[in-house]
């Protein structure tokens, strides 16, 4: 597992009480409901969740990429600056520079009609560098992203690259703006396992070497275990639990996390099939009252049906939104 913390206390981004309402057919749907977590500098924070958990909406809210009509509330404190009230041009300025993005499908992120060199160098060209300087830097970036013989690839088009190489090109493009925060939404989900392992190793080494922070969005607990220092587990638009990755995955403090961990089979040894949770993940549009997880929870009591559990500290750095967290921890 990744080391539990970077040791640095500087906060890069403080997310507090983040709320996102999307217009619905009948009424607005709260897809992100009072989400709070920190991204310290030089740290990888993982957002884990199933479909409808709000993990992607949370990430998109940070960079201001939400669907039309979305209403955002709460606070996004970026190094002392409130992003939610920042001007549109300031937020545009942040995107691609201080905060860069990597998405699941590299083919969708790349322009099929432009060469790799042109796309990776775009942000550099706009900064007014000379052609030679841009070219030199692009070769450096492609090399850093692990693309072999980078100088020869400047004229290549995305379709000439394999899936893994395309994702490397997207990573090079993200690094071009010299970001402090890299936002990676399911960056390896579409890739084969051997390629996935290499891309994850690359992301980890870039994060460590450059001392940047990463917000990694994934449904895959194994990916989190290997890359994230801290994790935020989301369910139905809310934070279920958060803390250091090794603590959360080894000793969950929320029954939902417990079930997720139990459902991941070992690879090298034969494990028994997990006892599955009943039902399907709750979605923000039909979020149960009280604790949103209660209809599927083996520990649910009357209180869980009526009273929404607040996110509370159960140990230093461990936060959980479960009335019976102590029971889960002892189990």
């Amino acid at each position, binding site marked *: *597992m990744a080391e539990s913390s970077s040791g640095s206390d500087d906060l890069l981004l403080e997310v507090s009480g983040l709320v996102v309402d999307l217009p619905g057919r009948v009424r607005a749907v709260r897809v992100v409901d009072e989400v709070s977590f920190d991204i310290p500098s030089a740290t990888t924070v993982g957002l884990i969740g*199933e*479909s409808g958990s709000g993990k992607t909406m949370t990430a998109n809210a940070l960079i201001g990429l939400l669907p039309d009509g979305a209403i955002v509330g709460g606070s996004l404190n970026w190094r002392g600056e409130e992003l939610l009230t920042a001007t549109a041009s300031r937020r545009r300025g942040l995107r691609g520079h201080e905060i860069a993005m990597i998405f699941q499908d590299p083919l969708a992120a790349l322009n099929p009609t432009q060469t790799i060199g042109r796309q990776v160098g775009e942000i550099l060209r706009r900064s007014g560098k000379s052609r030679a300087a841009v070219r030199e830097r692009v070769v450096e970036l492609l090399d850093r992203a692990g693309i072999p013989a980078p100088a020869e690839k400047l004229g290549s088009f995305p379709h000439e690259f394999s899936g893994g190489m395309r994702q490397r090109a997207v990573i090079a493009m993200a690094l071009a703006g010299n970001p402090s925060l890299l936002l990676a939404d399911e960056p390896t989900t579409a890739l*084969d*396992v*051997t390629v*996935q*392992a*290499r891309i*994850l190793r690359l992301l980890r080494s870039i994060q460590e070497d450059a001392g940047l922070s990463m917000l990694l969005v994934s*449904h895959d*607990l*194994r*990916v989190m*275990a*290997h890359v994230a220092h801290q994790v935020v587990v989301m369910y139905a638009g809310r934070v279920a639990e958060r803390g250091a990755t090794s603590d959360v*995955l*080894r000793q969950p403090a929320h029954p939902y996390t417990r*079930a*997720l*961990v*139990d*459902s*991941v*089979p*070992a*690879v*090298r*040894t*034969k*494990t*028994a*099939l*997990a*006892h*599955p*949770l*009943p039902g*399907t*993940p709750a979605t923000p549009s039909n979020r149960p009252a009280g604790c949103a997880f209660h209809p*599927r929870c083996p520990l649910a009591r009357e209180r869980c049906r009526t009273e929404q559990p607040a996110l509370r500290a159960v140990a230093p750095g461990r936060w959980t939104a479960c009335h019976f967290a102590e029971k889960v921890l002892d189990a």
Partner: protein
Amino acid sequence: MLEVRDLRVTFGPRRKPFVAVDGVSLTVGANETVGLVGESGSGKTTVARSIVGLVRPASGSITYDGRAVPAGTSRPGELQRAIQMVFQDPRSSLNPWMTVASIIGEAWRTHPSAASDLDRLLADVGLDSSVAGQRASQLSGGQCQRVSLARALAVKPRLLVCDEAVSALDVSVQAQILRLLDDLRRRHNLSMLFISHDLGVVHQIADRIAVMRRGVLVEEGPATDVLGAPQHEYTQSLLDAALELNS
């Protein structure tokens, strides 16, 4: 029960064909679950599609219970019934406008001798009888995959070919469907060819595992041997790349 011998499948122009499956031999015994693993492009899906008759092999033979299975879709109804396939994405393998009852009814119209009680069939896959009147588009991903399973089971098959049948599902739902598959195969004495890229899932559910790479079967054996002590370097490289939750 199922025997695939020297299967070869090619695509594209006859003069310069792309060989998707190159001489694969594979057996699935009665009540046995065989896992087929490999990365994208390994040919595992093409093997599956050949077995159910969606792809016409260039050469090789497929026999079922000692009888030759004719290539392509022109196979006797009895054989069509015996071998059923479950696909990865239930949303694209079910007609979104059809109700669950009509999806199952269609299977029964094709194979009238298999027709039985709808409520019982739905209960068998963990669905309430109230979903019978709902359209596939109204169901969740997990419910859709249960309907796909019900449609396959409706014609009383002997062998289920599952191609990434749990890969598109949420983790918590995936665990439900895996358990359901395991229950169903016990209750109905089914054999299963379980195709997946997830080595952990295959290790859990399969008795034997076959590993494919670029159209060729590189290793095959009992699940615990293949993933516990792999003999082929490619299997080893897959294992090296596979992440564990606790390591």
